[in-house]
């Protein structure tokens, strides 16, 4: 992606998002009392103003993209193994989704142990044994601090409960 492509993508994205906000999201999801006499004091005014400015900035980005130089230099460093890198990103998304699902069921400590080990292996750690040891020790140490020093009620889950 060149600078120009990014500029245009951002411009169109911002403009479409602003239109969505103005014509659908704000009327649908922002409630306003019927007795507000002055639009400036209405809860709708600020979101509409911001959406309007977003549309203007979007148009500005489109104009800047169209009138700017067409420099072919890519904006980000190209990755040698882009499809595999994308798979790793999806893997990280799966780890995050799994964390959210498991947190209330397994508890924070066990879920974090799994998340640590999974992410360390996902990024192809060169120290697998150390990764496994850290996967156990780090969540336990954090549990000890937050539960026993800071007094935070860390979720324990339904399987194995810690003191």
């Amino acid at each position, binding site marked *: 992606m060149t600078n120009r492509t990014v500029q245009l993508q*951002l411009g169109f994205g911002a403009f479409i998002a602003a239109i969505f906000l103005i014509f659908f999201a704000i009327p649908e999801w*922002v*409630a306003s009392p019927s007795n507000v006499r002055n639009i400036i004091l209405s809860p709708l005014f600020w979101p509409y103003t911001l959406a309007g400015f977003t549309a203007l900035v979007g148009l500005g980005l489109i104009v800047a993209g169209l009138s700017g130089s067409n420099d072919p230099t890519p904006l*980000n460093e190209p990755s040698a193994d882009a499809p595999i890198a994308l798979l790793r990103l999806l893997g990280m998304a799966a780890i*995050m989704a799994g964390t959210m699902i498991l947190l209330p069921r397994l508890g924070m400590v066990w879920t974090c142990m799994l998340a640590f080990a999974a*992410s360390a292996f996902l990024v192809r750690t060169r120290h697998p044994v150390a990764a496994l040891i850290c996967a156990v020790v780090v969540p336990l140490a954090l549990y000890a601090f937050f539960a026993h020093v800071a007094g935070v009620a860390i*979720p324990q889950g339904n399987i194995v409960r810690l003191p």
Partner: protein
Amino acid sequence: MSFVDSLLAGLALVGNVESFLALFGGVVIGVIGGAIPGMSATMAVALTLPFTFAMQPITGILLLLGVYKGGIFGGSIPAILIKTPGTPASSATILDGYPMAEKGEAGRALGMALWASCTADLISNLALIVFAGWLASFALNFGPPEFFTLILFSLTIIAGVSGDSLLRGALSALLGLLLATIGLDLVYGTNRFTFGDPNMMGGLNFIAVLIGLFAIPEVLAMAWHPTAHLGKTRSIGNKWVTFADYRRSFRSIVRGSMIGVFLGSIPGIGAAPAAFLSYSEARRRSKNKANFGKGEIEGVAASEAGNNGVAGATLIPLLALGVPGDVITAIIIGAFMIHGLQPGPMMFVLNVDIIYGLFMGLIVSSFFLFFVGSAAIRGFKYVADVPKRLLIPAVLVLCIYGVFAVNNNIFDVGVMFVMGWVGYLMMRFHIPAAPFLIAFILGPLLEDNFRQSMLMSGSDWMVLFRGPITWFFWSVTLITVVAIARAGVKSVRDHTASRGKKA
């Protein structure tokens, strides 16, 4: 309360082992965090924040300030030894620091970086002590229209200078402002984008948003490119900095510190531009102009003085006006809020003991930085050897614990993950994250002051131009927009012209 009373009240608050240990520990964490490439001072402060919840307010804030100070210096170590700035503020240090390391003078460059950092830090802290109280007493005259124009000016300058283009910065700030509208309306208490979920009625948790924006993208970047951090570490060498070197660079250090103080006290500019400006001024005025960029020790001194000169000065707008000067102070404002403190002019009236306690702690932090920095220079090898692919999963786990601990709410962990992806996309599309976060923090204040202004004037817009202070802020906002837009157009023209010549 007289000055001596305030001083004694501050001393009573920080005059204990716990506070000094927190400050010292903070400097150690900051130097290590800043020295690990890809970690940055910002991330170190964000990850330390959850550990302050259980502390006394002053102890927690001193810990974070220690991390901040240590992190800015720590960034210079990998900049000099492996040509990778540990924190963006250290980018200018590479220009002369790395060539010195190539010549076997890394120890000399690092020593000068430390001496310049400590001197600049001390000057910056003194500037904070002198100017913050004065500015706060002036800001006591501010009403809602003045605060509205001040915040608007701050957001404009943050949006303008944070990234490559004003428009992308403005888009980032607008997205932050839009995100800040989530929750109950400030005046009528009606729902805005809450989707009927009680978790969203109080708005999105600030800590979840900031950790999501600044820590999780690094985890995702590591997933995208796991070996990006690998680099060759240069040896420190046998040459060490001498007092003669320091004396020769002293003018540049003081000038750089002043530049740092001036730019740092303007909300939004931050340490990196200060470092580059200080460097270019030192080069312009130096007798060894030709040696700059090839390993000139004065260049290292100037850039480090520039970025550390900012560290105390960014606290001037934070403490005196309640407006964070950069991303790190935006995180530190979170620590104030969590402990029920609201930075701003009223803090100099209601919590003067905390203010003076912080001042004393900051002065001591410069001396701690000197000792910790000296040890860190020699111990960098061990920090550089920490496997990044173990560190990043640990960061992920720490983020989960830290964000959960704010409200004991799993929903906040979800918010952090979502914001992490938003931050990662912003990184890929080169949208600066700083305006987003600062707009998210200042958004409710901006709207509140706007609506209060309208309420007090019966919706007369002229209240926003009611006196010299509002006129001043409108003028500087306009000047900022024009200057940044002109600079953007000029850079596009220059770029096009240079490409035309090449073709």
